């Protein structure tokens, strides 16, 4: 059978979603797929475009990876615009060639509408749609003081926020008498305006721009029809979008009166071999400018190409909920009460700045629409009433009253019918979620992975969690504890999400799976997960803010704000020359010196700015960081073993050094300690460590999950008479299994006790490979060993990273005034009571 060719024009959000759906379907096997994208970048999350100004990169926003495309066998042509369609011969034209197709998908999205005002082609007149647009805005903003956004709709306000973030004085100019005229009414618009002006964005309504000329005090002047004017350094047009239908138009496909490629319920255009999805498509005279309907079209088309005529696109709900400049705004269904006989209930608290309006049917039984400004906490409940036609309570006003005034509590997930749509992006109903749970999903993470719910715009995160928790509780499952207020997941679930979705930054993780900005609980946990998964330098810019101060500055902070330094001394073995260097450095910087319990030397009292200098000297002498600051492997303690000791049966020092070199730097949920003894006399106290190794005549016995400290625990015998290689492979597996599945700050002992089945289960997983993940665990460990770098070496060699170690960035010679010292037993120590 000859393979057919399917071409997708446009590599945006919807085009990409279509490929994900289609490639997973049987019909994919019959097609060679080619994709053309006009933009340079691989499809990215346009919905979160503005985060590009907050430090997110294209990689954070990307929807997929080049590797994924090549794995699927897709030919990807980025930065290549399709310029023509020859429908008779089924051939596409681009500046670089012609391509034959059997089936063609147009996913060309839309373009920003720029009103035909004289002067709109000035270089500082810009738009807000693509990453390139944002680069242009950023460039224009440098050297600018003020910026104007033309258009007070949803995107315009988002653009105004961005201008503010870029440090500009921001203005919004709107033609209509209020902001967001499509979604809000007069009262709602007025409240939004008030709130936004309080935040320092100036709003000008009922202004029609006549032309744009050179400014006197700024680059540009906008002249309005009422004779007034406004000077500004740059203008962003956000006056609506238009479907990108040029290609379809030129090839004679049916186009709507006001633009848009006409499609039927299966996304076919007037040519049966050409299909259109996303914002370029016009269905029953309607364009859908949101991502969820586009995704539904993508799924419908994928089904249609698989011969499924049952599923059809039947319109979409255009309700929206968002936060504009920190202000909640929500609009549901028939917000403007256009249904005949519709009635309104309004709640307006000017004091608190909350406005809520419900539009209800003539008989008072169903909710038709709603508007919310200032507080979106009622949105989910109202949306469920509207979408599912749930009969309103007798006093419907209770739904929008504050609870103190007799308001009804939010609609519990129990009240929702099975057919209630929970996630509109991925078309997941409550019934789908129950099915997933009955099929074995036992936490939020696995429900998300199984159903894809809440992996689109993220608007349904809270509702999904409520439904999942409620359903799990009904089935008697204990709902796992949330890490903190920002993530409704345990550490293990987060690890899974990071690994499976290839997430590499905290921003991406919290945006897709959490809320807010994070805190000192979740940030270090995520930092450690990212480090365990990808092993990037902990001072990489993205990771710096995630770490505890000890991890950030790679030293242990002491009570007066100075740090202690612990170089690695693998197995406790050190040459006299190296020992002398330690002494010299300690002397030069007057560092208090003490031998630790882990057979190393701890140097106390270094100031922040001394740390890189000290490490430069230590590194030159061959030292590496000891990770005493990290939740990672500390030391592998050893006795001298068979080399010197008359009882020794194996080279315990050699093995200790080998283990320490292998696991150094690995980030774990908590610190990890190991020890190796050269015979059963156990002089290294291996049985009080997370991993204890004791030599036997035939090899090594491995003990696991012991610890000293507050709640000492003897390690359990795990395996006996292992060869060197077997020992390392076994430890690899236990360590990685611990890293992947333990909770935050859980030592190995507690982790193992909490595993269902305890030690026996752990033995099955590791020794018998009962989960079939043994090879994967070893491979993961191997990858980490291969990418090891001494963090201190990387840091001292990089001037950008060294900048972090300035005590006061504007005063290099200023010493910290509270660090007072005295001398005791011949060494310097802090004065106890700080001034």
């Amino acid at each position, binding site marked *: 059978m000859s393979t057919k060719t399917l071409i997708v024009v446009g590599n945006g959000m919807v085009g990409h979603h279509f490929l994900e759906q289609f490639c997973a379907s049987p019909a994919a096997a019959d097609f060679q797929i080619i994709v053309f994208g006009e933009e340079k970048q691989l499809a990215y999350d346009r919905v979160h475009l503005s*985060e590009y*100004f*907050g*430090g997110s990169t294209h990689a954070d926003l990307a929807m997929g990876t080049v590797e994924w495309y090549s794995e699927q066998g897709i030919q990807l042509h980025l930065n290549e615009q399709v310029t023509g369609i020859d429908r008779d011969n089924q051939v596409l034209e681009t500046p670089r060639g012609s391509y034959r197709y059997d089936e063609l998908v147009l996913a060309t999205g839309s373009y920003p509408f720029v009103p035909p005002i004289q002067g709109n082609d000035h270089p500082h007149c810009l738009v807000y749609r693509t990453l390139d647009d944002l680069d242009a805005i950023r460039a224009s903003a440098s050297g600018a003081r003020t910026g104007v956004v033309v258009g007070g709709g949803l995107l315009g306000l988002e653009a105004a*926020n961005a201008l*503010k*973030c870029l*440090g500009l004085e921001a203005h919004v100019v709107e033609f209509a008498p209020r902001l967001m005229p499509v979604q809000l009414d007069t009262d709602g618009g007025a409240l939004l305006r008030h709130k936004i002006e309080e*935040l320092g964005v100036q709003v000008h309504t009922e202004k029609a721009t006549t032309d744009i000329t050179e400014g006197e005090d700024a680059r540009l002047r906008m002249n309005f029809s009422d004779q007034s004017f406004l000077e500004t350094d740059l203008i962003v047009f956000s006056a609506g979008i238009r479907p990108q239908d040029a290609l379809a138009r030129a090839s004679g496909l049916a186009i709507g009166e006001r633009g848009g490629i006409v499609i039927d319920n299966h996304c076919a255009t007037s040519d049966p071999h050409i299909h259109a999805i996303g914002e370029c498509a016009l269905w029953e005279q309607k364009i859908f400018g949101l991502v969820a309907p586009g995704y539904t079209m993508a799924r419908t088309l994928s089904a249609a190409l698989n011969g499924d005529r049952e599923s059809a696109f039947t319109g979409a709900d255009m309700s929206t909920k968002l936060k504009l*400049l*920190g202000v909640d705004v929500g609009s549901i269904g028939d917000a403007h009460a256009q249904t005949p006989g519709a009635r309104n209930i309004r709640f307006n608290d000017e004091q608190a700045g909350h406005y809520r309006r419900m539009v209800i049917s003539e008989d008072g039984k169903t909710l038709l629409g709603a508007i919310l400004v200032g507080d979106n906490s009622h949105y989910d409940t109202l949306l469920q009433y509207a979408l599912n036609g749930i009969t309103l309570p007798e006093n419907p006003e209770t739904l929008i009253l504050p609870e103190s005034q007799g308001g009804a509590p939010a609609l519990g997930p129990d009240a929702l019918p099975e057919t209630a749509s929970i996630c509109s992006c991925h078309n997941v109903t409550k019934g789908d979620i129950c099915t997933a749970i009955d099929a074995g999903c036992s936490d939020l993470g696995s429900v998300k992975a199984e159903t894809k719910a809440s992996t689109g715009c993220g608007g349904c995160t809270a509702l999904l969690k409520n439904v999942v928790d409620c359903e799990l509780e009904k089935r008697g499952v204990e709902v796992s504890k949330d890490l903190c*207020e*920002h993530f409704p997941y345990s550490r293990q679930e987060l690890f899974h999400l990071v690994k499976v979705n290839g997430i590499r930054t905290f*921003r991406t993780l919290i945006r897709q799976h959490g809320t*807010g*900005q*994070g*805190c*000192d609980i*979740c*940030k*270090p946990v995520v930092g450690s997960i990212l480090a365990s998964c990808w092993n990037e330098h902990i001072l990489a*810019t993205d990771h*710096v*803010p*995630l*770490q*505890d*101060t*000890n991890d*950030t*500055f790679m030293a242990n*902070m002491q*009570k*007066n*704000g100075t740090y202690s330094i612990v170089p690695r001394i693998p197995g406790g073995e050190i040459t006299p020359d190296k020992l002398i260097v330690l002494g010299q450095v300690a002397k030069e910087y007057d560092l208090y010196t003490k031998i630790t319990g882990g057979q190393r030397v701890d140097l106390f009292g270094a100031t*922040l700015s001394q740390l890189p200098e000290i490490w430069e000297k230590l590194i030159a002498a061959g030292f590496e960081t000891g990770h005493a600051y990290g939740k990672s492997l500390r030391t592998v303690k050893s006795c001298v073993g068979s080399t010197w000791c008359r009882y020794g049966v194996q080279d315990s020092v050699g093995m200790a050094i080998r283990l320490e070199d292998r696991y150094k730097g690995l980030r774990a949920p908590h610190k990890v300690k190991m020890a190796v003894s050269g015979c059963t006399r156990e002089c290294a106290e291996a049985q009080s460590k997370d991993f204890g190794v004791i030599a036997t005549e035939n090899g090594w016995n491995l003990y696991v999950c012991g610890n000293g400290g507050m709640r000492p625990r003897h390690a359990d015998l795990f395996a006996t008479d292992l060869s060197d290689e077997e020992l390392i492979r076994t430890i690899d597996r236990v360590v990685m299994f611990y890293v992947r599945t333990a909770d935050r700050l859980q030592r190995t002992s507690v982790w193992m006790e909490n595993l269902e089945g305890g030690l026996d289960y752990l033995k099955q997983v590791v020794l018998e490979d009962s989960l079939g993940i043994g090879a994967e665990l070893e491979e993961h460990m191997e990858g980490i060993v291969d990418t090891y770098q001494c963090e201190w070496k990387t840091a001292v060699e990089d001037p950008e990273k060294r*900048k*972090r170690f*300035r*005590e*006061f*960035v*504007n*005063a290099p010679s*200023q010493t*910290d*005034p*509270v660090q007072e010292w005295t001398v005791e037993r011949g060494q310097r120590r802090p004065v106890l009571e*700080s*001034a």
Partner: protein
Amino acid sequence: MKPRTRWEAVCTVDDLVPESGIAVWTEDGPVAVFYLPHRLPALFAISHTDPFSGANVLARGITGDLKREPVVASPLYKQHFSLRTGVCLEDESVRVKTYPVLLDGNQIRLEVPEIRRDSIAA
């Protein structure tokens, strides 16, 4: 009479670390300047001195938000301080000094009380 203040230039945008803090030396002593690019306003300045230990370390704490309030956690004993008001969330009777901060071109400026120099000059 309103005490006299001045807008002291303390560092440039390049010195800031997103989602984190840096310490600067001002006429009023050590101050921690935080840059949280994902919220508005994005700049905050509070005293660098941890009131519980007396050590100058607050700029080295982890930032974030608790119930939407922007905070930094002391790196020593982990109390949280509001970046807006300086109030300690665990003990509201404790509060650290806050300073108005603004971005002027590429310069970060803090409003600090002006040290009266005339008596010294006299």
